């Protein structure tokens, strides 16, 4: 039996907050919130035997809302990084890498990712790709190549638009959602090369909220064990990003190994 924090036990509800980030969480034609994250959350709620409630919270107010106890769980696919661990704890439930996305005619040109060095690359601010771009720039430097210019856009559509209008050579994207975007762009964009810079991604919780952390870890473990996890990831074509065991990150040192 999974131990529930009092706010879940007392209300009989699992309150989560999500942001719009297809295909994890987005609004469908009928205005309903759907996506991989949402399906997983529904499964988790069922495992915990409570009702699921979803708040849509834009990124900017996520962290303040956690600090203010307005929300308890940011049910996300946020990259776990050193600097972020100072502000919050994470429950990682997937592994994500970065992939290059570009126009079809440039598919071969950028198959090797260091071909981007010296060019212009678009990323969405705060995504895994944002961090990955910095790492890639370092690789350029070590390879004795010129660094590329990183253009940071506030949303995924804007990075896509930048590539389509030719203002950026390519954009770096989380491997998990890249497939989805190249699919909805109806062939305007293709993925090239392979996934690199793999790192854990997961939910954000308030620093020190061990109760919530263990509840989430236990619930996800249960979903992994009973196969629901795999079914959902398969549905979205992301089984390659699956992990065997959720990890609660509270400390920078956990990232080192």
């Amino acid at each position: 039996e999974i131990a529930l924090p009092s706010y879940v036990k007392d209300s009989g509800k699992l309150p989560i907050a999500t942001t719009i980030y297809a295909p994890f969480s987005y609004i469908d034609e009928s205005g309903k919130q759907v996506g991989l994250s949402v399906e997983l959350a529904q499964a988790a709620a069922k495992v915990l035997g409570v009702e699921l409630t979803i708040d849509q919270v834009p990124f900017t107010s996520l962290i303040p809302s956690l600090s203010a106890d307005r929300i308890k769980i940011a049910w996300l696919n946020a990259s776990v990084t050193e600097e972020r661990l100072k502000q919050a704890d994470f429950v990682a439930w997937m592994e994500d890498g970065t992939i290059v996305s570009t126009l079809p005619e440039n598919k071969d040109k950028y198959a090797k990712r260091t071909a981007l060095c010296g060019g212009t690359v678009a990323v969405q601010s705060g995504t895994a790709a944002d961090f990955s771009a910095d790492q890639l720039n370092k690789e350029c430097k070590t390879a004795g190549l010129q660094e590329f210019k990183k253009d940071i856009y506030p949303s995924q559509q804007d990075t896509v638009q930048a590539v389509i209008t030719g203002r950026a050579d390519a954009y770096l994207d989380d491997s998990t959602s890249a497939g989805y975007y190249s699919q909805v762009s109806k062939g305007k964009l293709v993925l090239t090369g392979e996934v690199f810079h793999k790192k854990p991604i997961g939910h954000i919780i308030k620093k020190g909220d061990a109760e919530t952390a263990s509840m989430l870890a236990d619930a996800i473990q249960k979903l992994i064990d009973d196969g629901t996890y795999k079914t959902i990831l398969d549905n979205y074509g992301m089984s390659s990003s699956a992990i065997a065991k959720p990890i609660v990150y509270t400390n920078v040192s956990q990232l080192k190994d």
Partner: protein
Amino acid sequence: MNVLPLKDDSVAAKRAQFTVVPLRHPWRWAAAAIVAILLLLLLQAVVSNPNLQWPVVASYILNPIILRGLWVTVGLTLVIMFFASVIGMIVALMMLSPSKMLSLPAAGFIWWFRGTPALVQLILWYNLSLIFKDITLWLPGLGTVFSVPTNTVMTPLVAAVVALSLHEAGYMAEIIRNGLKSVNRGQTEAALCLGMKPSLLLRRIVIPQAMRVIIPPTGNETINLLKTTSLVSIIAVGDLLYSAQAIYARTFETIPLLLVATFWYLVVVSIMTVGQGYLERHYSRDEAGHDPAPGGFSRLGSILMMREKWRGAQ
């Protein structure tokens, strides 16, 4: 000095019958023609351009999500503008008071709320519990009368209304202050001499006259606010623009959906502009009557634009 006698009138009249050749303004006609041609070209480009996906635009115009967003936008704008005007009025009066005890806090209010980005205020109010965990009424003698968690009170909608009303009030205070200052001092004195109380004087004499100066910039402010309300999406209240963005985030139909939002904004702004014109006319109804010296400035306009005003032959 001797005054020359005038010739017979009919002679004078006859010798002065000339045709008048009005001044030609070739450049003005040329400019108008160029503007017209450019507009036509643009229209043609816009209508026939496949990138704008007009069929998609049409299919979303009455989409329920869009309409709900529209409703949120309009409703929030009205509510916020109401509160902002009331608060702005109070602050403006405080500003105009010669008592430092009142004018200093008012100046501080304007400084803070005009100077802080609306986004920041929204987040701070929404997460007020960061600073105050509970809202408690404590009275000496009675102890704690009631206490509620801040988060219960500060729902997203409350936070949006509070934050944006205060923010907008900073701007409205400036506008109202300017309007009140424009009312002639004689009006105030005349009303005082009739025994009117300050509140009555303000309501019946000063404000109606200040309105003429207040309304035009308030129109600007309201339209600004209409668009500023899109910030509420930050705290998960979906307005018109945000709804459009939420849709194109999924479907990548960026341009058509922005056109849908534009369409509705134009509709609302048009209605508001008509309302503004109506209000402006209402508050200058006394000018509508016989005016021996009509619209000083439309004359200047006519001179500046060198309009032909010839109405007969000299």
